[in-house]
């Protein structure tokens, strides 16, 4: 684990550099209206995108993006300790990072691991700089928990591939430059064995993005239609019919990212949710109530343990280990914490959580947070799917009997 080659003096110098950078380029969290409790909904307006892109550009140009990423692809080739120092110094500042979570937390690691040299050279630098935003095109209307049941087709036509089908729940598709898509290339073999991954230009002819509205009222994700979209041979990621392996890699990164918050940008040293709830409880007077105190402390414990877990997972990833099923632990713990935080805020707000005046931003923020919390549990795989993954991959327990595993894909019962 200790691959550190930096000296304490270098690390201290780096800390000073990061501290100076944040104090002159970023905003303190408490200065911002709204804040992280409402972050589920953030990243969805054009303004937010511009702010985010400018911030990421500046970060990159100052040598503070992609700290532990290889230099030859635009990273800094620094150590995990630099990342830790960065996280500590970034804590308490607004990081408009939401639009880059999928790009840096999921797509970039997949390209690094499974992409061609040309793809790595072409894309990773612009991703780290915030010039390219990516989305992942995995789920389909008929393939949710069972993603390997996907039916979007890719057919070879000379040197090109032709894509037809539909994807859904695609976060950020409406502002993405590229997407990572998994397609069916062979329906005559079992479902996991006929899947291929490609890079798709989201502005290519035949790609149509339609926003979906969530129960919270926001529109963070989309349905994406592919109508005879032509991809060059160079868009292929990994081998033909071997895309499931790469897809699993992306999904594991996704769970780390969703669970531990912040993906490739890496954050999560604080107890932001606790701080906000404690402030609210102080404001309502409930802070002296033993039941409230017990629950508040439980939230602090869960938030801290999740932050420690996230640090340890990122340390493991950045020291070169492929993401394992540990991401499912973070995802499960993270979504449980999210619900618990939302519930506690509603308890503290009582009636004002369900109806509020125009000037009551606090109630609006927590109500929005509550309405976003079921989505947090489902995105990236439901809790039940996470528990199956942990039980089977981490603990080695046998799978449920499967009816479709060895059957040619075209014979499987579908929706």
């Amino acid at each position, binding site marked *: *684990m*200790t691959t550190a080659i930096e000296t304490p003096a270098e690390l201290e110098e780096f800390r000073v550099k990061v501290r100076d950078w944040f104090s002159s380029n970023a905003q303190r969290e408490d200065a911002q209206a709204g804040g992280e409790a409402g972050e589920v909904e953030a990243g969805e307006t054009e303004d937010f995108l511009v702010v985010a892109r400018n911030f990421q550009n500046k970060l990159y140009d100052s040598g503070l993006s992609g700290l532990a990423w290889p230099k030859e692809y635009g990273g800094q080739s620094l150590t995990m300790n630099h990342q830790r120092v960065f996280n500590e110094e970034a804590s308490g500042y607004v990081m408009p990072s939401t639009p880059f979570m999928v790009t840096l937390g999921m797509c970039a690691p997949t390209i690094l691991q499974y992409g061609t040299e040309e793809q790595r050279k072409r894309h990773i630098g612009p991703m780290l700089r915030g010039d390219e935003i990516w989305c992942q095109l995995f789920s389909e209307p008929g393939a949710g928990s069972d993603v390997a049941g996907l039916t979007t087709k890719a057919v070879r036509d000379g040197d090109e591939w032709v894509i037809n089908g539909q994807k859904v729940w695609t976060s950020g598709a409406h502002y993405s430059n590229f997407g990572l898509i998994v397609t069916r290339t062979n329906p005559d073999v079992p479902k996991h064995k006929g899947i291929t991954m490609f890079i798709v230009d989201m502005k290519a002819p035949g790609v149509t993005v339609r926003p979906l509205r969530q129960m919270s009222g926001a529109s963070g994700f989309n349905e994406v239609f592919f109508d005879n979209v032509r991809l060059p041979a160079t868009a292929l990621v990994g081998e033909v019919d071997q895309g499931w392996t790469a897809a699993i890699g992306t999904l594991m990164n996704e769970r780390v990212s969703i669970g531990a918050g912040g993906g490739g940008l890496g954050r999560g040293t604080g107890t932001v949710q606790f701080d906000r709830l*404690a402030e609210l*409880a*102080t404001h309502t007077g409930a*802070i002296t109530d033993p039941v409230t*105190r*017990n629950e*508040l*402390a*439980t939230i*602090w*414990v869960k938030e*801290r*343990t*999740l932050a*420690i*877990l996230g640090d*340890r*997972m990122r*340390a*493991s990833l950045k020291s070169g280990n492929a993401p*394992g*099923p*540990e991401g499912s*632990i973070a995802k*499960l*713990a993270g979504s449980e914490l999210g619900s618990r935080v939302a519930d506690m805020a509603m308890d503290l707000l009582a009636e004002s959580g369900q109806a509020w005046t125009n000037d009551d931003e606090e109630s609006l923020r927590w109500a929005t947070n509550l309405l976003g919390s079921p989505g947090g549990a489902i995105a990236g795989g439901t809790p*039940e799917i*996470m*528990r*199956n993954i*942990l*039980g*089977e991959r*981490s*603990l*080695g*327990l*046998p*799978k*449920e*009997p499967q009816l479709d595993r060895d059957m040619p894909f075209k014979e499987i019962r579908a929706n």
Partner: protein
Amino acid sequence: MCMSVMTQEREALKGAVADYLDATFPIDKVHRIANGKEDVSAGEWTKAAQGLGLAGLVIPEEFGGQGASLGELGVVLQEFGRTLAPLPMLSSAALGTVPFLVCDNANVSKPYLEALAAGTATAALALSEAANQWPATINTTVATQNGDTWTVTGSKTFILDNGGADFYIVSASTPQGPGIFVVNSADVQRTDLNAMDLTRKQSSISFNNAKATALAVNAQSQLTQIQNLAATLVASEQLGGADAILKMMVEYAKMRVQFGRIIGSFQAIKHMCANTLVEVEQARGAAEDAADRAAQGEDITLSASLAKIACSEVFSDATLTNIRVHGGIGYTWEHPAHLYFRRARSTNALFGSPVQHREALLVGLGY
């Protein structure tokens, strides 16, 4: 799966201790000892002290110890928690030793630390005077100074002393504030408690004008630090127990067949195991983080409570879940499941329960 962030030295230490404990204290032997059908062989602790350096693990080398950090001690305690080995690792090498290090009074501590490191004597930490007090308060125990010597009068209880220690470290009030003293076992009246945990004995002691050695007076900050460390060290041991129980339930779920299937293939059982894994891995982070912060000399007030809450809860939850995965066989006296269940509930209450630590946390956070 283990996401422990460990150095090679720690892995080696863990492996050596695991090999020793697995060979010396397999669970059926621990069970027989718990039932009073067998005794720990005389001199076993001295052997462990001399062979593996366990007794003096965190004692500085100048006093004959290994000079290891609290992080290493945490790793060793995990192994003791895993095996329930009935040696005074937690009681003496951890809880009975740490006060000497915290008080850092070399002239006074030297003979004690040398005897502890050699494994020829054991110590026990005796702070509690009554149930339901965390941090432990000094209710009635007083120390009196007569020239250069001290005497103490009072009583202590819920002491982990492995059936009788050679020295007891007690807290007592003095005119200069709380003090920390060492008294010899010959100068105390010791009474066995009826402990739920069959693998570790507990006692209460009383003493009247007993001769005492002062480790520190006006020692509120040392007393607080000792209790934070105690919570952290107990948490490490709990983590080892919880990890062992996760393995036990998974092994059974992979072997037991009902309805024509391995029961671990049912999601109902699989999810119980997965939930335990989620809790164990989070508790591991909390426990190792607290031990490492302690080793680096950081203020561990919050980290200690975090570790004690996380490890107490996962150990209690896991030992109950394990019995449910096993069904009837897990509820029998002969099965080791209850030994861990008992250890879990015992350590849950000792050195601050989760409820007490949650309140301590909020106070520590300024609320």
